[in-house]
């Protein structure tokens, strides 16, 4: 579903390697966790996947489509939720949702069903008539989540999705991620919350200084590390 081939990106005229020959192959139906300390290259990698940052070298395939060669086809298969919800403050919630739905050309009857479902789940029904500028950080985050779910993307990409969500929404989001994978769709997300990754993910990659230093299921990761009890210990040991 998602394939990264030798993906690299340098900053400051080649002196800082943010992402260094990253290779990943993620199958349909997988929940994939992307872990790493601050500044390890998580967001840079994600931005290269969704088309926000052009890689210096390497390729990104979504369902076999090269993101940087056929951006429109590739982008219609994915949805992206960034780490901070910078969206149009002057639009009403509902206007934003309809705008996004128009961009994905979602038919009327489908968008109505989806909107009702997700607005209910994330408890945003009452606020959706207000302008986004009046929302709290968490409400904006939830609105971006809803907008990203409207077109039922094959690949759902989230950058630090749990930050700023209340416990209930956070729980709901985890449920939704699980459901999507049961339907054969793919979820790719970065996180700092090791517990979430441990419980939720089919596979995990740990990135440090731009390189993937560990990749596999929880069990496989355990077999690599000396301290084997928790992901926290593994993480700390590997990224030292």
């Amino acid at each position, binding site marked *: 579903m998602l394939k990264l081939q030798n993906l690299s990106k340098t900053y400051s005229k080649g002196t800082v390697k943010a992402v260094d020959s990253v290779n990943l192959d993620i199958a349909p139906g997988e929940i994939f966790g992307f872990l790493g300390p601050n500044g390890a290259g998580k967001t840079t990698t994600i931005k290269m996947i*969704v*088309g*926000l*940052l*052009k890689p210096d070298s390497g390729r990104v395939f979504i369902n076999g489509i090269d993101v*940087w060669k056929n*951006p*429109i*086809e*590739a*982008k*219609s298969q*994915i949805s*992206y939720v*960034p780490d901070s919800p*910078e*969206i*149009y*403050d*002057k*639009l009403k919630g*509902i*206007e934003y*949702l*309809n*705008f*996004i*739905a*128009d*961009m*994905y*050309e*979602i*038919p*009327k*009857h489908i*968008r*109505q069903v989806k*909107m*009702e479902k997700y607005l209910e789940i994330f408890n945003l*029904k*009452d*606020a*959706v*008539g*207000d*302008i986004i*500028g*009046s929302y709290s950080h968490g409400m904006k985050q939830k609105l971006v989540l809803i907008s990203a779910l409207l077109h039922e993307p094959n690949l759902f990409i989230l950058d630090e999705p749990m930050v700023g969500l209340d416990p209930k929404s956070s729980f709901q989001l985890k449920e939704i991620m699980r459901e999507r994978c049961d339907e054969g769709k793919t979820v790719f997300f970065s996180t700092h919350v090791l517990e979430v990754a441990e419980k939720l993910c089919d596979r995990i990659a740990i990135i440090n200084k731009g390189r993937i230093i560990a990749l596999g299921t929880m069990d496989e990761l355990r077999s690599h590390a000396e301290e084997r009890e928790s992901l926290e210990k593994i993480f700390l040991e590997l990224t030292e």
Partner: protein
Amino acid sequence: MMKKIISLIKTDLNITYGLSALQYKFNNKKDRLQTILIAIALLSLIPTYIMIVSGLVKIYDAYIGIGQKNMFLLNGFIYAQLIVLLFGFLYVMSKYYFSNDLNVLVPLPLRPKDIVGAKFVTLMVNEYLTSLPIILPFIIIYGTRGKEGLLYWIYSFILMIFLPVIPLALASIIVMLFMKYTNIKGRKDLLRVIGYIILLIALIGFQFKIQSIAQQSLLEGENFFLEMAQDSNVLVRKLGLVFPPSLWAALSLGNYSSVGGVFNLLLFVGTSIAVFWIMIQLSEKLFFEGLIGGLEVATTGKHKKVKIEDLSRSSLPFLSIGLKEIKILLRTPVYLLNSVLGVVILPLIMVISTTMNGKEALGALSMLTEGNSHIVSLIGIGIITMFGVMNCVGCTTFSREGKSFWIQRVMPIKVKDQIFGRILSSLFVQIIGIIALLASLAFIINISLENVFWITILGLMGSVAMTELGMVIDIFRPLLDWDNPQKAMKQNLNVLIAMGIGALYLGGVGFLVYKLFKTGVNILAIYGIMGLIYIISSYGLYILLKNLIIRQFSILE
């Protein structure tokens, strides 16, 4: 405490004038260009300034002639303090209540008067930049022509230092009171728009006053200055009575060698300090009350019910982009003022200036247009086409996305839809401009249906080309990293660049049309040629834009 305030003032000055960023700025090519362009713009104002100053010399002589040379100084102080007051409202409003650092400053352990005091000092620097160019010529002319002594210059220096204090403190008090009593939730933006419009009208009125004075002086020659000196004596004296500080300043400088001079100087300085002190004391009570609540965007209290139909309102992608642009344009005051108000104000000025200048101007216009009503159409088309770039919609369309730009880039939007949608939002503003122009033309002269037809059709075609031109520039160097919409539109260099290139383009088309018109080419053929030029350039720009968008959308970081 004092240390804290000084640190606050230093930081505020640093941020406001970008002192720390200056070094970085000059190393950056883009910003260097900006600095140079601003310098050129300032230099271009010098000839006008010299003209005004040389006019002042004549006014000084006229006052000498009627033995009222103190009145000359009074003029200077009144104008300078009046301008400081007018700009003061604008500066105080944005500096005290709408600046970005408030979110940082308010939670710090500072008293309201510390914040207001520091901001006041920064504004003083701003006001010197405004007041010195006005008062200096008066003082220098008076001093050099009258061969005044050293004490005169010392007095002048002290007076200039204190000159902005009273008007700026008054502006602060008025704005703080205004903000306290109008701190109605959710009405902040509306009030701001109203405030701007009132100020704009005041400035335009002031501009016309000066213009008509200048025109009159050209007509009447030397005698004019004498007459004006005599006439304005009454007016200035009245103003002086309404605003005594200017009078004290003039009297102190006019009688610097006598006791009266010292007395008036002390009065001026003392009052300045007193008014400043009162303002600071009041700020303790007023400032936070006007501020709190102003920082947040208020909801309407009860939530608006969203109906089922709203959940399924779909439209074509390009329409949806256009509508989104229009909604944001209309709901962001800075955008509204620069786009829609921009295209309405010029036709309005046309009406005001012709009615103010009376029958002569109207007569001349009718004479010009009587013979050939097509001139009206051609000029109208030209104005509308120029609006196409002046409305700032095209040349800031990507910049306005700001930090939300990622939305446009991660979604599967066809480039064609991007372009059409954004042109649509510019045409929306253009249609308002066309209505305003046609209405004001109809008010001034007789216009025919034919005029309406050609101005509308060819005006819109020209607008498309102009909007695309702006978009080309904006996607080439979008200004995305802003935290205040003001930066995306008002302080965006792309607007200036687009206007420059747009003016060249329009100048070229205009020159061609003028030549064709003079050689007596059939008017329909001229319209045809214009239309063809617009279509060809629109298409060419469309192709260029398409490629640029694809390229920039992928390489921007």
